[in-house]
């Protein structure tokens, strides 16, 4: 398997693997794929066993001030690594932007916040890998999760007038047989939104149905995304509505290609 990138010759980066709580519980395969993918790309990866949660569910519900304990635990768990990588743009954005400032841990907090990366961002920007070579003969639709898109700027969005890019799709651009469809609403929110999914249940489900319909209308076989929270929500609707469409995290695809 040929991979187009310059391996870091002088130093193998030691990564602290941050697996969001719901991925740990519901989607261990995505976590395993992330771990194996990073290892295959030449990284040393450690999963700190004491990790719990980044605090986002509480903070987005208005309880940021109650996340001091969670945040200091997170910083202590991860400050020793060269980089912190997670298969979730949303949780990474939370750690960067919304965790409460902890004066006593200021130095370590700043370090963690400037060294934490979403998976595709880490592969493109830190490992400097342009694209992964291989074959994936499927028709996919890409779900651009909002926090990765407009928070971490993992891709250009349809709202701004800026050069078009997409770090996740860039990694997949050379895959043989892959067809990425153009959606009607290429980056509309799926309606998950954390506690929004239950506090605004009706709109949340309608938004999810609308997103899935856009992919189904275009003949998409697999919806590919980078945040399992959005995927869990859309998968839940698709399975309730007996839609045949599949949903996958891009880490599963890339890991399966680099065997």
């Amino acid at each position: 398997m040929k991979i187009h990138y310059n391996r870091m010759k002088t130093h193998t980066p030691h990564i602290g693997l941050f697996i969001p709580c719901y991925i740990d519980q519901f989607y261990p395969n995505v976590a395993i794929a992330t771990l194996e993918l990073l290892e295959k790309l030449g990284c040393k990866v450690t999963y700190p066993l004491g990790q719990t949660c980044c605090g986002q569910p509480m903070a987005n519900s208005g309880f940021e001030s109650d996340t001091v304990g969670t945040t200091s635990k997170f910083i202590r768990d991860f400050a020793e690594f060269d980089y912190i990588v997670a298969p979730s743009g949303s949780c990474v954005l939370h750690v960067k932007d919304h965790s409460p400032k902890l004066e006593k841990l200021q130095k370590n907090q700043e370090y963690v916040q400037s060294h934490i990366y979403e998976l595709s961002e880490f592969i493109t920007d830190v490992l400097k890998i342009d694209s992964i070579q291989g074959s994936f003969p499927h028709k996919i639709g890409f779900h651009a999760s909002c926090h990765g898109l407009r928070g971490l700027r993992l891709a250009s969005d349809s709202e701004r007038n800026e050069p078009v890019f997409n770090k996740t799709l860039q990694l997949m651009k050379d895959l043989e047989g892959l067809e990425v469809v153009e959606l009607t609403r290429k980056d509309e929110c799926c309606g998950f939104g954390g506690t929004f999914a239950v506090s605004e249940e009706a709109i949340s489900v309608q938004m999810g149905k609308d997103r899935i319909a856009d992919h189904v209308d275009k003949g998409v076989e697999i919806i590919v995304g980078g945040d399992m929270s959005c995927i869990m929500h859309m998968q839940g609707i698709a399975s309730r509505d007996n839609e045949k469409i599949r949903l996958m995290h891009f880490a599963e695809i890339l890991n399966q290609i680099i065997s």
Partner: protein
Amino acid sequence: MSHSENATLFLQNKERAKWHDDTLWIVRQKRDATIHQIPEWEKLRELASQIKDHTLSKLGYYLEELEKNATANGIKVHWADNAEEHNQIIGRILDEKKCKAIVKSKSILTEECHLNPFLEEKGIEVVDTDLGERIIQFLKQPPSHIVMPAIHLKKSDISEIFHQKLQTEKGNTDPVYLTHAARLHLREKFLQAKVAITGVNFAVAETGEFVVCTNEGNADMGVHLADTHIACMGIEKLIPRRKDLGVFLRLLARSATGQSITNYNSHFRSPSPGKELHLILVNNGRTRQLAREKFRNSLKCIRCGACMNTCPIYRRSGGFSYESTVPGPIGSILSPGIDLKKYSTLPFASTLCGSCSDVCPVKINIHEQLYEWRQEITKAQGSSIKGMSMKMANGIFKSPLAYKISGQLMRASLKTLPDSIIYNPLNAWGKGRNLPDLPAESFKTWYKKNRK
């Protein structure tokens, strides 16, 4: 009612909800098409944002400059600290003129101040002359959108209203026919009114003039036929120099409707000979918002409505679901500053997707302020939230599956979360969605077996 309850009702009419979503999405698409014709779009937004930030940082200075220059131009400047004072000032002018009928062009500020009911109580006929405004006035409804006030109505609805109010042919939904009927009806009202009221889009401190932007020319028609023009503006509608105006006029219409520019951008500087021109500068809570550091820059808003058109929640719940004068994302960060309790569900009517902030022509960080208002609201609510978590807990204990899952989450990974989050109402999840299949083991368990 909470936003969520209103939204649930709105979505019950599936076909209409879809139509509403599609209609506003078309406006968003028009906006996208036009901004891509402007290579310097993002620079324009940045410039507009900086001009507004600067103006807000010296608001007192520029307001006094505006007052001085406007007065020198022959404009009578009034200051109103709140809605009541604003309405009283207008009431006094109308009494003085013995005026019993006025025409008004769209002004969200007069909606905010509830001017219409105030004047109607005084026996004064108020006619809103913007076509959309007139339609909802017939229905005694507030606007559902700040730029397209009747966007929630279909052609067939309007045909029915006009049939009843203007005796148009029943079932005739031809827009040209209906608009013509409205035109004849409004012309009569224009000719009768001695006083015309308008809003203000931009006031220029340097020149003491102000600019009103409309597509229908109704502001101009009203003003030119009346003897007295009363213009009402929120104190944040200010820009320092006339040359700044170009930045905002380029952004406003493109963001609002996808037009290059509004059809009429009328400058008002001095009254015509023999006529009067009044300018009312209204605070009504704006200085309180200015004092809130995290929420200050919401006052940069130029009322283009782009955040409404792009908001996936607004499009699927309609303007009325917010129950506030300004609906949508911008309304959800402005309204809690006016009444935190009444509008406490609005900052939660968002997935924090950030689309509003990225379409905003003056770069208001709307979704970040929604997040910040959530923090303020939970602080203010304290005890009632605990009550809610008990209800949530109750919901979980009723569902064995939800209990099993939340129990696993609680035991395995969410040890540091407070009860209000752990007792998450997972039962609401299952109404329209299945839960994920539970894997045989967690990642943590797998990792211990395979890597340690």
